[in-house]
């Protein structure tokens, strides 16, 4: 039992918590920024301007086809080398995950706007609302309601994917776990700690993401009536 290394994990709990907080920080910040920019991009994507549309679609596909991990690496190593500047890995992570989330939400918002019956736009126009008023009071509220399940879903995916940041050096929970394991092995080569640690991590992530996914399903059911 002692070989499982549980007491080491308990001792290292504060460090683990710190690492976990970093993960949550980046996930939540990316989510909030993504929602904000995503709606703007989504509205922009409905514009009739061919150039704007084309550019946005290319960026969207770029983030769809290429894993965020690759963008993390490209931005971190590529920018540092090419422009000879020091990049902060947390900043890079925030940028990559925000862009990813923004375009996911943007595409979602765009599809919701185009699927709204044209008559909602006309009825708003008929009572004299300006374009901005129409979007603020009539169109966007309906879209926000409809997109809530997908936003919760994105939150779950962000939490699962942000731990990749440790590969470019962010001290989040994976990095902390690894250093703890290394220390333990140094002192006690027969420890089973890697088994225990990763098992616990799986449980922790599950306990956060599972309720979120249930919440998303609940939201979906509730708002399908509207």
């Amino acid at each position, binding site marked *: 039992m002692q070989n499982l290394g549980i007491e080491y994990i308990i001792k290292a709990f504060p460090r683990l918590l710190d690492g976990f907080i970093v993960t949550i920080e980046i996930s939540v910040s990316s989510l909030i920024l993504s929602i904000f920019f995503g709606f703007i991009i989504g509205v922009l994507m409905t514009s009739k301007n061919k150039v704007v549309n084309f550019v946005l679609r290319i960026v969207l596909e770029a983030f769809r*086809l*290429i*894993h965020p*991990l*690759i963008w993390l*690496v*490209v931005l971190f*190593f*590529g920018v540092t*080398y*090419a422009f000879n500047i020091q990049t902060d890995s947390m900043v890079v992570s925030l940028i990559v995950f925000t862009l990813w989330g923004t375009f996911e939400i943007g595409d979602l918002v765009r599809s919701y706007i185009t699927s709204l019956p044209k008559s909602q736009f006309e009825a708003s126009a008929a009572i004299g609302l300006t374009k901005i008023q129409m979007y603020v009071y009539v169109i966007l509220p309906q879209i926000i309601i409809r997109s809530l399940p997908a936003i919760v879903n994105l939150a*779950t995916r962000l*939490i*699962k*994917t942000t*731990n*990749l940041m440790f*590969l470019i050096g962010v001290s989040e929970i*994976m990095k902390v776990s690894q250093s703890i*394991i290394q220390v333990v092995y140094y002192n006690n080569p027969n420890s*089973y700690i*890697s*088994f*225990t*640690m*990763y*098992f616990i*991590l*799986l449980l922790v*992530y*599950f306990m956060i*993401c*599972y309720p979120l*996914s249930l919440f998303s399903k609940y939201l979906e059911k509730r708002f399908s009536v509207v």
Partner: protein
Amino acid sequence: MEIRNSFDLVNIFIHASGVTIEVAFLSIIIAFIIGLICSIALYYKITVVKAIIYMYVEFFRNTPSLVQVYFVFYGLPKIFVKLDSFTCSVLVLSLLGGAYMCEAMYAGMKVISKNQRELAMAIGLSKFDTIRYLILPQTISISIAAINNNAIFLTKEVSVMKIILLPEIVYQAFAIISLRADLTVPIMILMIVSYLVILIPMSYGFSVLERKVRFAEFGD
């Protein structure tokens, strides 16, 4: 590894892409089979099995693939067996993909009305034949878009396997950079290009497949 000229560099990435495609291909097929079996089991409502499958699906969908693969590669060997990075990658991706595929196919199955199943029973079709001729074709037709998306997702996820030393694209990129930092920019470009070369034809092929499958079923 020796890099004398750009041909060597490109060569490394070509081999890495090969590894990626291999792992992805195997994982997709196994995931598809797992998904099929699980969704059929769910559809026929075998209670105990249903609970197990539900737990399996939710577990793999709500935990990061990174931690899953670390657990299997570094954690399991302590009490179980040590796997090499290739097997480990395929194992984890198949299970992960299987969970997603199961969900996609089960959602498709739910759409097929209960009447059809009862009709099949009334005609005297065996359960096996019902599945084979009635339910499967319709399920695949309805869920094909989700199935394709899952396949592309699995292919992309192979990059995460870098951390267990699978010699795929991102792993090789890291390896070369640590030796020759001056090649950073070409490496970044090659990394992106390699994935695009794999994924763009894949994506195109899948949309053609999707259209064909849906046409066969819905005629549109």
